[in-house]
């Protein structure tokens, strides 16, 4: 496994139509309740079954501005598909809604003539700013453009997409597809400006001075958590964000053609078992690690990653050490990682998260030789915007921006949504928040 080509292959037309025909068009449409951006799922599936693919993608895009992304990275198995009435009826499980969404989104790419005129019907001549071009920001920007606002989307990195760009690897979300989705957002009239860090390059009050009438903050969960164990400053310990940014955004896998390095050695331990941890461990394997190992303090059933990601990792030869908790990292005389000491765990009673609490087994300590440790145990809300904007009220404990029921922060005209207000969540939850905030901003601006 050395290449970064996409791992999951999509449906053929025949497969897609056959799958779409399995939908019984039930009356209650429970699947729709599982979709944070409220796609009319049965209707788009009906159009696929009738081979009206152009109609199907238009139906999806009425609500979802990033279908090719969602078709790939949404956890449909816990959302729309989990509510499908076909489950448990001995009829082959739920309709593969995600795969169908991806099928029509990918088909659209091959048919530029389908380009819809979803762009604004009216130009309101009102400037609005969206900060952060991840899932929340892209969605808010697209919806605001559709409402008729002049939208500028500010991104601090050199390319748009946020976590979709720096975080999710090519083999799960190809760059070409992401570029196409952001290109669609631009085609709606959104101007994307990269290399601008709002809060530093321009302050929020500066944006108002510049004539923006409302601002959406979708700055995400960019603050990496560490374990707080000895040895985390040793050379060879990366945060998941650093490791993935080096590889995905800066192309370190093509070093030295691309000048940003990444160094992994032969044995790589990734601490954590979420989707980000799976991304890290699979990237490490592709970069040539002989052993790429997931170390997780709970058991496999408790792992937060999607089942499909864990299965892909297993197929690629990733080693899993469940019920294993690192307690320190040791280095050599040059300050480089040489091993990680772990404790074996057993599961006790459920904790606040509802998952069974891991308890250390006495005397189970052992040393695991490794060259690299990647910490993938989650991220907190990015503190920069609150740090540089004293008017923004922040939850003391979580660091999340406080918003009211209309998605507005403590600063008038400044709205927020996505991971910056909820802590780390899914792509689709952030998109749902961006959509809701865009509607709230529209009401606010109409009243203003």
């Amino acid at each position, binding site marked *: 496994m050395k290449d970064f080509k996409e791992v999951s292959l999509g449906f053929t037309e025949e497969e897609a139509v056959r799958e779409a025909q399995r939908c019984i068009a039930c009356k209650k449409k429970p699947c729709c309740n599982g979709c944070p951006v409220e796609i009319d799922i049965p209707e788009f599936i009906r159009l696929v079954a009738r081979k009206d693919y152009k109609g199907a993608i238009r139906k999806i895009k009425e609500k979802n501005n990033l279908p090719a992304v969602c078709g790939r990275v949404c956890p449909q198995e816990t959302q729309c598909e989990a509510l499908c009435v076909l489950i448990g009826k001995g009829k082959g499980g739920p309709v593969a809604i995600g795969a169908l969404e991806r099928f029509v989104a990918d088909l659209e790419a091959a048919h530029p003539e389908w380009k819809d005129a979803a762009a604004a019907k009216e130009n309101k001549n009102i400037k609005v700013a969206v900060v952060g071009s991840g899932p929340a920001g892209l969605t808010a920007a697209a919806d605001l453009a559709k409402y008729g606002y002049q939208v500028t989307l500010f991104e601090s990195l050199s390319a748009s997409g946020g976590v979709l760009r720096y975080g999710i690897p090519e083999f799960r979300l190809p760059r070409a597809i992401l570029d196409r989705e952001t290109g669609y957002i631009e085609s709606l009239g959104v101007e994307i400006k990269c290399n601008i860090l709002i809060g530093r*390059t321009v302050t929020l009050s500066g944006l108002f001075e510049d004539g923006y009438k409302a601002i959406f903050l979708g700055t995400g969960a*960019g603050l*990496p958590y560490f374990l707080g164990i000895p040895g985390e400053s040793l050379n060879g310990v*990366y945060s998941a964000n650093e490791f993935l*940014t080096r590889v995905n955004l800066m192309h370190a896998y093509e070093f030295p*053609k*691309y000048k940003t390095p990444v160094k992994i050695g032969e044995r790589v331990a990734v601490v954590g078992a979420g989707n980000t941890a799976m991304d890290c461990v699979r990237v490490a394997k592709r970069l040539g690690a002989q052993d790429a190992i997931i170390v997780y303090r709970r058991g496999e059933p408790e792992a937060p990653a999607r089942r499909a990601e864990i299965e892909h990792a297993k197929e690629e030869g990733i080693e899993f050490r469940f019920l294993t908790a690192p307690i320190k990292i040791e280095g050599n005389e040059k300050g480089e990682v040489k091993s990680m000491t772990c404790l074996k765990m057993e599961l006790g009673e459920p904790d606040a998260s509802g998952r069974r609490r891991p308890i250390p087994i006495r005397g189970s300590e052992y040393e695991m030789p490794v060259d690299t440790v990647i910490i993938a145990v989650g991220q907190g809300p990015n503190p920069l915007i609150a740090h540089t904007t004293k008017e923004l009220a922040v939850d003391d404990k979580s660091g999340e921006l406080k918003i009211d029921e209309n998605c507005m922060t403590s600063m008038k005209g400044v709205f927020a949504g996505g991971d910056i207000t909820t802590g780390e969540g899914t792509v689709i939850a952030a998109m749902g928040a961006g959509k809701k905030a865009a509607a709230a901003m529209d009401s606010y601006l109409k009243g203003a």
Partner: protein
Amino acid sequence: MHRIVEKKQLADTITLLKVEAPLVIREARAGQFVIVRLDEFAERIPLTICDTDRSRGTITLIIQQLGRSTKDLCALKAGNSIQDILGPLGNPTEIEKFGTVVITGGGVGAAELYTAAKALKENGNKVIAIIGARNKDLIILEDEFKAVADEVLITTDDGSYGMKGLVTDALKKIIAGQTVNRIICCGPIPMMKAVTGTARPYNIPTIVSLNAILLDATGMCATCRCTIEGKVRFSCVDGPEFDGYKVDFDELMVRNNRFLEEEKRALET
């Protein structure tokens, strides 16, 4: 794209570039930096904003040729362009009326303190600048510092110019002769450590500007993490300036060496 409007060679290996970056200027303050990415293939590297020219919309970058990325930047000519410049980043230097402030710059580090010297002087401080380098050729911005500081002392390791010795030798002399209320220091890590050590017996507040390896420089990747009074801090957003007494310089030195092999390889290509 950011066009280079002026280039000046300050020393064999030290280049000054004036670059168009009108957006960066608006909020730029002393002590802040930018992230520069020369082209599609380049690294993101941090460079201090050494000066701003509001009428021309330019910032001044002073670059010492050390590795691949700095070599490529130093090779640029007036009229060439830099693809991305992000900033201003980091917390600005704290500027108040402290009394007597000694600015201590080692090598190219001196350039990074020029705007602070200027701002401190404007705020009514007595500013003494010590500029140190290995030899005469590497002494930069002497005239510029003379124009803003009350006193400028030059030290060279080999005695080819100014006082023979280290910046700490000059600092000791100053401290012996008068009250110093604050020291601000930028340069190689061993030098910043030595300056902090020199100041410590006199308990003079000493601010150091750290030069950790950065990546996104917006607080997202933690590659620049350093230990400040036993706590992990990010140099990019919590710094780049810290109380020198609290910095674990030895750890920073080790961390800054972590891509030495790769830097060598990149330089060979």
